């Protein structure tokens, strides 16, 4: 729906999810890689566990649907080409160390001078300014510094980071919002903007960590699976695995006791209808509740509780999630046709538009696969000119 919006994606692992999402929202995304290729191409996991330049599943997920061109922006000719491309672009996404593009004379002021309507979004660990701006921020550093890790996991064990590179993904989602805000405002003003997105701050918007500490003088600490203010609301064991049971309201609690006909009489105490009382007693309540949940298989318990309006879902492995009838019927997974990886199954965009799941994104591009198309279409460069640039390792 937004296929006339052109995005140049210069990001590394930090910002590639942003380009992926913009592409899924309908924009044309051209990935600008160094001539040696994006290092993400060599990151595991690999198809069939065989490392190779075109077999990274991480690269495929983050870059599926994008076009790829190669360009060495650090060389004068390459710099000029990027400026020429950006005259035709609506958005530039980048995640270089702060100041790097400016050091090549490719900062926002230069890009906007050539194209006042350009939107440039920078996604970095700590943002473009401030005392930590140059601190290195692989995902685990950003998620730790953003406060999400400290509150996650078993209190008896070290704090635990979420799987994959969630800090990068979450920061990228904020960057996407920044891009859309700037594009939306541009429709009125005609002028683009620079967006500075801090991944640390994106993570720090979650879970009330700052407000709670600022208000109470105490930090939220790890509680394992136990929800901070609802109980029973945790992971409970069943015969064949686990469920997450979430007993929020008084009616949920009463419905649970009604179903659990032989529950211990201590649970009939009237004060337990009050959620804060239940939460205070969670360490005592949870083992009792687990004696009940252990009588069932997880699907059986889920159905029994949901029929009574009590929120409960199984703790799935990724495969179990994919095998759920709900997931299958909603066709989350679709076939991606890709030259490099062959046809393969992949998760699609998580939203349905007017009842339709969007077509799967394309597969991952080969390095420089779209040089001719992009440089030809946008800059009118003929194949022999491209050949010459290629020989000189500019593209």
């Amino acid at each position: 729906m937004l296929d006339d919006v052109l995005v140049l994606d210069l990001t590394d692992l930090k910002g590639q999810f942003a380009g992926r999402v913009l592409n899924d929202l309908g924009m044309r995304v051209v990935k600008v890689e160094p001539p040696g290729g994006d290092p993400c191409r060599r990151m595991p996991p690999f198809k069939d566990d065989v490392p190779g330049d075109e077999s990274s599943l991480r690269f495929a997920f983050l870059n599926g649907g994008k076009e790829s061109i190669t360009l060495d922006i650090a060389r004068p000719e390459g710099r000029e080409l990027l400026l020429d491309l950006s005259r035709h672009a609506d958005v530039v996404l980048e995640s270089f160390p702060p100041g790097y593009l400016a050091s090549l004379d490719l900062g926002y002021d230069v890009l906007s001078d050539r194209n006042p309507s350009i939107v440039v979004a920078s996604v970095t660990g700590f943002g473009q300014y401030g005392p930590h701006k140059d601190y290195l921020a692989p995902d685990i550093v950003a998620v730790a510094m953003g406060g999400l890790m400290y509150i996650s996991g078993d209190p008896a064990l070290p704090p635990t980071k979420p799987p994959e590179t969630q800090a990068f993904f979450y920061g990228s989602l904020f960057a996407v919002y920044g891009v859309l805000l700037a594009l939306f405002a541009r429709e009125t003003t005609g002028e683009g903007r620079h967006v500075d997105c801090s991944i640390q701050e994106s993570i720090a918007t979650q879970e009330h960590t700052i407000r709670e500490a600022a208000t109470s003088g105490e930090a939220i600490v790890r509680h394992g699976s136990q929800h901070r203010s609802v109980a029973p609301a945790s992971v409970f064991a069943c015969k064949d695995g686990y469920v997450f049971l979430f007993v929020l309201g008084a009616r949920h609690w009463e419905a649970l006791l009604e179903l659990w006909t032989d529950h211990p009489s201590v649970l009939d105490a009237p004060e337990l209808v009050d959620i804060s009382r239940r939460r205070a007693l969670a360490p005592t309540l949870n083992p009792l509740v687990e004696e009940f949940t252990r009588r069932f298989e997880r699907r059986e318990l889920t159905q029994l509780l949901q029929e009574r309006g009590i929120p409960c879902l199984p703790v799935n492995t990724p495969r179990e999630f994919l095998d759920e009838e709900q997931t299958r019927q909603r066709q989350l997974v679709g076939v991606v046709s890709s030259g490099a990886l062959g046809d393969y199954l992949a998760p699609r965009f998580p939203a349905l538009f007017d009842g339709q799941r969007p077509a799967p994104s394309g597969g991952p591009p080969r390095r420089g696969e779209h040089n001719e198309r992009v440089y030809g279409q946008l800059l009118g460069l003929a194949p022999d000119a491209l050949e010459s640039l290629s020989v000189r390792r500019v593209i």
Partner: protein
Amino acid sequence: MPHAFLSGVRVVSLTTGIAGPIAGRLLASYGAEVFKVESRAGGLDAFRMYGADPDASPRFVEVNLNTRSVTLNLKKPRGIALLKELVARSDVVIENFRPGVLAALGLASEDLQAVKEDLVVIHMPGLGSTGPQARYGTWGPTLAAYSGLTYLWNHPRGDRPIGSQGVYPDYLAGILTPSIVLSALIARRRTGKGRVVDLAQVDLTAYALGTTLLEVLVNGHEPEPVGNTSAYAVPHDCYECAGDDRWCVIAVEDDEQWRALCSVIGRSELAEDERFLGVARLRNRDDVDALLSDWTRRHEAAEVMNLLQAAGVPAGVVQSGLDLVADTHLEARGFIETVQHPVLGAIRLAGSPLKFSSGAHEPLSSSPPLGADNAYVITEVLGYERAQLERWEEEEVVY
């Protein structure tokens, strides 16, 4: 006063909990007029209960900043009619009720688009608006469990899945929804058409596990939790530091960083030790972790981070909420902001992680007391007389 990013955009927010309200807050704080519609007749946001009174729930306040509060009793036909009148004057409806709830009130997507043809409607259900489990009751942690996130968010070889106490699926949906809204509004300017979006929070959570799902779908693997480790970096973990529950993460991605680390921890002899160079370091993870922990335990977490970062080695304190509040970098960026609330007083909370070269978010303001914008909506937006509003208040229509 510079032009707000989203001035002129009107959003009706029928939301509860975290995901829907945050989407509303994000749109409102950039200048959209967001009408949060609730009712005293059994239709209050569930998060209002986390406080002494419904207007003083800090958690509710935080996720509903900058929105307007309207009370319409949707159990009465006139309440429904007024909601439709408000929708007719709006651009977007966001809702995160259980699928079927609005349809049962005669407020299905097609009913809403019947009063405003080019309306953008965003449903944010837990498991989706369709499918055999669509009507299941879900809250963030149950969706994390269902999607595979809880299973994966653990140390390796734990005896049971733990995950996090938090509600990551809500936060994902909260930030993606405003982008979907704006992309639909930009497209609408070109096509004149509205859009109905069904964003299943669980699908979004799975999308954020895309690489892991490819391991299942393409390779047929059964991915296991890896905790704080990485398949291609050692050291890459969370290390105990001096003090109580103090930790610093360290992630070394190449030999250059490894050599710098050896120098910082006073073990330069290890810099050329072949056991710890290149891929050999991946095989000797336990030895690396042991010698590194031996050093980190003797230093404060902030010192570990600062010494290593100064030498070009990625490291970061596992910051608690108190650390965030005292973080000088966040302070220099003005990230933590203060909102005034009539009952709770000054509240310090997280602002926006976005800075723009021109313009900014609107000043953050507490959402007003329940129903405080009723007069504005009924008289100014919908054009009724004040006497009519008073009658509706007596009849518990505006309630």
